[in-house]
């Protein structure tokens, strides 16, 4: 195990190093975002030469191309030791925790701070939808595996086909449209857009909802969580069903039945526990999903979380912000892969990693 972990650790370093290189190259290929400022005809947006010089220093574009990537990684405080004393600055580089500052979205704010501000909204969304999908998806999958080929199983199969085929953003638009209809008719509705309301608003049945209260947050979460959960549900319950069917056909299940163990115990004690093992992968990979998974849903519902931040950063060519987002999501993805592998060995002693 230790040997395995050490080997994996080095592999991860290599993969992450490659990821930073790919991410950096992508952004280096992009047209210089400052050109747009230089050519701007709008007198308000026009930047002086000093501004442009300052910005290109901030973005690291003043240095020769072969220095830009090392500077992004490790900062520019050490450049005099390799003979480029004229470029020495106070940047620390991502390896030392300086992920750069946003230059357009919110001027001169560290990108990590911006991401941290938006993280809670996205966490609310992802954690609640993951929990709901698991709580509904696991029993659905188990039930339709136990009653294979029953009416419920066919019904559930058609439902999951619809779930995997429906485009998430369109489903979001549909339920927003439904909530608008309900609102206009004076029925109970869920508010569309934003994480929290600005003013108090009135909803039938519940009465006044105070802006910023817990109830307000829940009201705003219901629709995006529904969309995300439906998406997860279709895939996860199908996965659970397949895993359960696989386990039910194993020899030890037959042995248990032959011993005369009651069917309930066979299913819940022998089969169910083993069928849960492959689900680890799904749950663990929901962690990087916090970053990338909700981009569409957040955009549809104007839910100002991380995905929304990322889209805004891209639309504004705010590259330091977009790069930080992308790098964090790939780090999480790599770590999730490792975590899944390790968890497997704990849960299932048959798997050895050495």
């Amino acid at each position, binding site marked *: 195990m230790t040997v395995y972990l050490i080997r994996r650790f080095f592999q991860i370093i290599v*993969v992450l190093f*490659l*990821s930073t290189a*790919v991410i950096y190259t*992508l*952004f280096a*290929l*992009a*047209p210089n975002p400052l050109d747009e400022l230089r050519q701007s005809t709008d007198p308000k947006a026009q930047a002086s030469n000093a501004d442009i010089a300052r910005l290109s220093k901030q973005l690291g574009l003043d240095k020769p191309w072969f220095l830009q990537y090392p500077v992004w990684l490790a900062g520019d405080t050490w450049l005099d030791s390799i003979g480029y004393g004229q470029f020495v600055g106070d940047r620390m580089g991502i390896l030392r925790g300086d992920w750069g500052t946003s230059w357009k979205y919110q001027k001169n704010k560290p990108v990590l701070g911006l991401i941290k501000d938006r993280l809670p909204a996205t966490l609310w969304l992802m954690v609640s939808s993951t929990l709901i999908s698991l709580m509904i998806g696991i029993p659905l999958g188990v039930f339709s595996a136990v009653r294979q080929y029953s009416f419920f199983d066919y019904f559930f199969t058609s439902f999951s*086909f*619809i779930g*995997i*085929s*429906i*485009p*998430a*953003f*369109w*489903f979001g*638009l*549909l339920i*927003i*449209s439904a909530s*608008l*209809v309900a609102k*206009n008719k004076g029925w109970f509705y869920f508010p*569309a*857009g934003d994480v929290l309301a600005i003013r108090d608003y009135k909803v039938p049945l519940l009465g006044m909802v105070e802006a910023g209260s817990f109830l307000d947050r829940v009201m705003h979460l219901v629709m995006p969580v529904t969309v995300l959960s439906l998406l997860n549900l279709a895939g996860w319950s199908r996965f659970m069903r397949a895993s359960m*069917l696989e386990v039910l056909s194993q020899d030890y299940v037959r042995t248990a039945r032959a011993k005369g163990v009651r069917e309930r115990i066979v299913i819940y004690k022998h089969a169910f526990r083993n069928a849960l093992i492959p689900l680890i992968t799904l749950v663990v990979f929901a962690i*990087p999903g916090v*970053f*990338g998974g909700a*981009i*569409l849903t957040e*955009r549809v519902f104007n839910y100002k979380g991380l995905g929304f931040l*990322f*889209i805004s950063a*891209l*639309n504004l*060519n705010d590259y330091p912000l*977009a790069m930080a*987002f*992308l790098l964090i*999501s*790939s780090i999480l*993805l*790599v770590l999730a*892969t490792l975590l899944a592998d390790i968890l497997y060995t704990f849960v299932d002693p048959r798997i050895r990693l050495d």
Partner: protein
Amino acid sequence: MAVTNTQLEAREVAKEEYQHPWLDIAKRFMRHRLAIGSLIVMSLIILSVFIGPLFSPFTERSQSPRQKNLAPLSTFQVDKEIRNIDNTVRTPAGGTATAFFGTDEIGRDLLTRLLYAGRVSLYIAFAVTLLSEIIGVTIGVISGYFGGFVDTMAMRFVDFLNTLPLLPILLIITTIIKPSINFLIVILVFFSWTGGARLMRGQILSLREQEYVSASRALGASNIRIMFRHLVPNAIAPNIVNASLSLSGVMITEAALSFLGFGVKLPAASWGNMLKDVNLSILETYPWQAFFPGFAIFICSLCFNFIGDGLRDALDPRAKR
């Protein structure tokens, strides 16, 4: 060598009983009713998308600000004659036409636009899937057949591509490059061939140890011939199923990118980018403008998934659903 009577008889019997494997597969596919239904619906959609616009009184770009936001099935007053791209008159002024699905916020007929957009969306879905399967199968068979260093490098590369978060990275690439439709296809292929390659490699690893491979090698067949004449046809079934299922995935990915404003760019229409400008006021007053394009994506993707399911049943009779 003399051929005896019994041998001749045996050949006759074999000839009668022999059924081409594809015929057998087709028979099993026909038993999956939803898959057959989906195949019919899909053919109708493809047909109408390619022939439909020819019968429309409107062109792709024709717009009329006075006829904006019409409800479905309302009458469209043709104030100004509608001209084709080659400047011939398509519909003379003064008449009326039916806007079956209504019109959008600048007075374009939704049905006509939907059909043109369908050409783009379906073209992208089919092109990306076909190309990534071809690339995936080729890399998979080479990697599995030769093994060793080639295999390690190819699979490490596949692993690496899979560690990149797909949607964010696609969004970034399309921001930076602002691709044309064909370039968008190239970008999507780059990120979607890995599944097919993995499947193919897995199949080849078990097939290459079979006796018929050693037999044909002993007979002097070249590596290329063994790989593409003997191994690929025997290992292709999972890839066909995978292709059908990934048609749906590609279609939804493209729609998502275009919806966010990063995929197919105006003036070209795709089902995704027809939903791009939908906002709360449109959803409140003209909800059908958001309904039809998404419904088209949904139906196509559902059909692809059902066809894939039918193909899985037909190609792998041992697999239980």
